[in-house]
């Protein structure tokens, strides 16, 4: 089982530029969490602070009782062996082929025999869909393959904490969907604590158990996915819908005058203001063990239910009801289980097109611009 990561009052600045301050959150053991945030809000810096690559000025990051910020390098290095980190561009060693890259942590930290190393490496490469590419050099493969190879390398020591830095950047939507599924399957298999840093809404809404968002040098909120997905907080709402209207501007944040002008003017015709539809969370693929984190999370979320806002409470209860409706013990009913995941997978796909409120909104844009255009000449 994964371990809990406790972050307390973390602040980091480069020179006079404050990146974020007083970030406090707990990544629950074995659960998948996502850290959202517009570009340039220090998501990657946050991720690197968790592993002790970047030293924040204040605060602590506690993993198994070791503070990753202030401890001596020797103790930090011990804890680092529990981590698997997938860097933005894979961060493969350019001089080694993929096999040697994935085998690197094994050769460094274990005394395994060559055939055993070979077995583990091939297994992990198969897992990320890179079987047959062992002899390629990192320079000879596409960005998506490099990312997946980086993931395979991160997995090779069976980590208890997995950190993914923008797993989606440079991937097409289909590959992103596969990668999302892969991350969930991984979590089901090794029950590791996972943190994904991203600004991809698709990953953020379907993969994690918990979500957080960084903006304006602060952690806006962190909690169960339902809490953010139903949130009325302007920043979160704007970000999840990918709208222009809201506190997030092109460069960083909008000033008060712009915001006031925006609030006064009507919504641009091409932007909807519907409540965000919460997609179902991804479930492990058929044949995978059930995620142990789900039960733990249910307990945890129910115990904190009264602290959540009403819409979030409702969403939590709904998703729990949905989960209960499906056969919970995957290995119990083979037939039921085989039938259930497609249903779960199809639901988000089918719902948007016929689902009530969305299509009319989608229809509006053609009508919207027509209105003002017609109004102009009058």
């Amino acid at each position: 089982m994964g371990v809990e990561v406790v972050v307390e009052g973390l602040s980091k600045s480069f020179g006079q530029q404050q990146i974020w301050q007083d970030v406090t959150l707990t990544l629950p053991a074995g659960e998948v969490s996502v850290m959202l945030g517009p570009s340039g809000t220090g998501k990657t810096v946050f991720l690197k602070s968790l592993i002790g690559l970047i030293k924040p000025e204040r605060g602590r990051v506690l993993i198994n009782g070791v503070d990753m910020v202030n401890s001596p390098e020797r103790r930090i290095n011990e804890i680092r062996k529990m981590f698997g980190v997938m860097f933005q561009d894979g961060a493969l060693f350019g001089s080694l082929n993929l096999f040697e890259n994935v085998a690197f942590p094994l050769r460094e930290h274990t005394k395994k025999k060559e055939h055993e190393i070979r077995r583990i490496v091939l297994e992990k490469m198969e897992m990320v869909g890179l079987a047959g590419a062992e002899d390629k050099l990192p320079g000879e493969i596409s960005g998506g393959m490099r990312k997946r190879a980086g993931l395979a390398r991160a997995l090779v020591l069976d980590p208890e904490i997995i950190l993914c830095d923008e797993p989606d950047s440079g991937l097409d939507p289909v590959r992103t969907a596969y990668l999302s599924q892969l991350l969930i399957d991984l979590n089901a298999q090794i029950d590791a604590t996972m943190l994904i840093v991203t600004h991809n809404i698709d990953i953020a809404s379907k993969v994690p158990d918990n979500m957080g968002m960084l903006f304006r040098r602060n952690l806006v909120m962190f909690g169960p996915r339902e809490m953010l997905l139903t949130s009325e907080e302007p920043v979160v709402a704007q970000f999840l819908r990918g709208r222009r209207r809201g506190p997030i501007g092109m460069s960083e944040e909008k000033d008060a005058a712009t915001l006031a002008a925006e609030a006064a003017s009507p919504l641009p015709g091409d932007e909807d203001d519907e409540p965000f539809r919460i997609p179902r969370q991804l479930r492990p693929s058929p044949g995978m063990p059930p995620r142990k984190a789900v039960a733990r999370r249910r307990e945890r979320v129910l115990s904190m239910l009264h602290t959540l806002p009403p819409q979030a409470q409702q969403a939590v209860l709904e998703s729990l009801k949905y989960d209960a409706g499906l056969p919970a013990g995957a290995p119990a009913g083979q037939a039921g289980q085989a039938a259930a995941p497609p249903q779960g997978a199809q639901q988000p796909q089918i719902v948007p097109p016929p689902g009530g409120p969305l299509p009319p909104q989608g229809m509006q844009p053609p009508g919207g611009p027509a209105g003002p255009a017609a109004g102009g000449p009058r």
Partner: protein
Amino acid sequence: MTAPAPAVPGTGALRETGKLFALAGAVLSGMFKRPFQVRELIEQFWFIASVTILPTALVSIPFGAVIALQVGSLTQQLGAQSFTGAASVLAVIQQASPLIVALLISGAGGSAICADIGSRKIREEIDAMTVMGVSPIQRLIVPRVLACMGVAVLLNGLVSVVGVAGGYFFNVIMQDGTPGAYLASFSALAQLPDLYISEIKALIFGFIAGVVAAHRGLNPRGGPKGVGDAVNQSVVIAFLLLFFVNLVLTAIYLQVVPPKGS
């Protein structure tokens, strides 16, 4: 990183100097830690040797000749032709040889090391290695610095021989010097400690060239352009340091070791 506004001018340079010394310390202590990267050391040793041997030999011939010619004409005016050999040997072994070696190690080997480490840094390879609990200093930098030092010491021997031979050739053939007197005067002024200091200098210069290259490589500023700048800086900084350290070492040597015959 932007420098804090109220910073006193020069603190940036001091900070970098501090980091350089910290890295030098880490490299020194890393040399005695297991596991030792034998393979990486051999690869780097071979690489640095292969890029430096030929240019060093080619530089050292004319350099030995210039010293021999200059010293030869000077001693002739002073009427001390019999000491020509000794003087040119001292100049070549003590000063010219370690410096030529250091300049070439730093220029050919150091710049390659800096570019290599720098590009690994911006591709996050160094971070990835650190995260895997493998010290990049132990794994990448120590073998490179050791290779620089080893190649420097061996090359120093080569340059000394080639330089002295070149001096002999030019003095005897071009200036009609007496071969016997040239050789005999070696032992009149030169002594074994001159050879020792020469090798010690080469060793230290190799260390400096390696550490400076690694330091600049580990701290490139933003992107591929930063790596180019870092290579440039590493060579310039290494040159400055080499000449300064050479001055200090020479001064100490002249104070500590009494000249022969006095």
